């Protein structure tokens, strides 16, 4: 075993989870801006079937989905880490 105490371990986990929360906050802000950009692009290119337009709309939809996946993964990590910290 290393020399790290339980208190130090709890403190390290708490500090890391604070970083996760900051990351989640940035991702949430990104999601809000992305929704606005998606709506603006849809309005600006309404009626266009050009493949670059459909491609950019698909890319934005994919980006939105991956932001959701990011938050789902961080929430899973947070729950696991908090559960572990509670058992210490």
């Amino acid at each position, binding site marked *: 075993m290393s020399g790290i105490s339980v208190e130090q371990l709890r403190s390290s986990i708490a500090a890391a989870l604070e970083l996760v929360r*900051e990351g989640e906050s940035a991702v949430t802000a990104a999601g809000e801006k992305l929704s606005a*950009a998606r709506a603006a692009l849809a309005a*600006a290119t309404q009626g266009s079937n050009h493949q670059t337009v459909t491609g*950019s709309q698909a890319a934005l939809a994919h980006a939105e989905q991956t932001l959701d996946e990011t938050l789902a993964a961080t929430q899973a*990590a947070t729950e696991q880490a908090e559960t572990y910290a509670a058992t210490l």
Partner: protein
Amino acid sequence: MTDVQTYAAHLRNIVDSLPEAEARRGLDRLRKAQSALTVALRESHRPEVVKDLGRACESLETAIRQFAAVGTAVDDYLLAIGVGGASTSAVPLPAADAPAPVAATEPGPNWWRRRVCELTDDASGADAKSDPVGITDLFTRLVDAARRDDRTTYRRLLLTAPPEVAVRLPGLALPMIRNLASDRHGGLPTQRDVDRLRSTLDTRARRLLPRLPDHVTVDQVNAACGHAGRKAGGAGDTAAVDFAAIGPILVAVLHAIPPRPKSS
């Protein structure tokens, strides 16, 4: 500004509004968290926590790549409707009821070559044939020609580059300019630091692009370093050509400056 240019500016503003900065900030925090938890939990038999954060980082990286793809797709769309140009604009975002896309009056690659002829102060070659070339190859050859101060080759490469490829040069040049400027300055240069470099940059740029407007070198270094300022594209096609043409020169010039130790 024509309706088409206004529409192009609107689309570029939408691209500029994509939350890449937020996503990168989130990615930075999650990577730090992952690193911290990797150390803290190394003896806990809880690898899934670290794996979940790794998955989160990968998703976020995918989102950032999608933002870049949207920028490219919008550039391609604007080229297709005859506007062309780089992916940013300083023009304020107009109302959402921007005009529908209409065909440009002068589509085709001549807008690119005409501007190259103007920048190089040589009217010949405006009807040159495009030479199919990939963006990385084009960039490498331009940097090499700039490094050798080979004006003839630099001009020929610009004239024969397919415009839809050449307008993406800033995508390769800007990150390199940022890294080189930081290395050579010993840290990310401020706008004032960039201004001090101006005469060096302008002198070298003018050897290859004698009619380049005064502000373009400094604007590109400032843009690369994330400083606010004039951006490419707002003035239409010419600004896009200027911004694309100067990047490889700046990379060559900065590369030739010896690095300084990092400032603390």
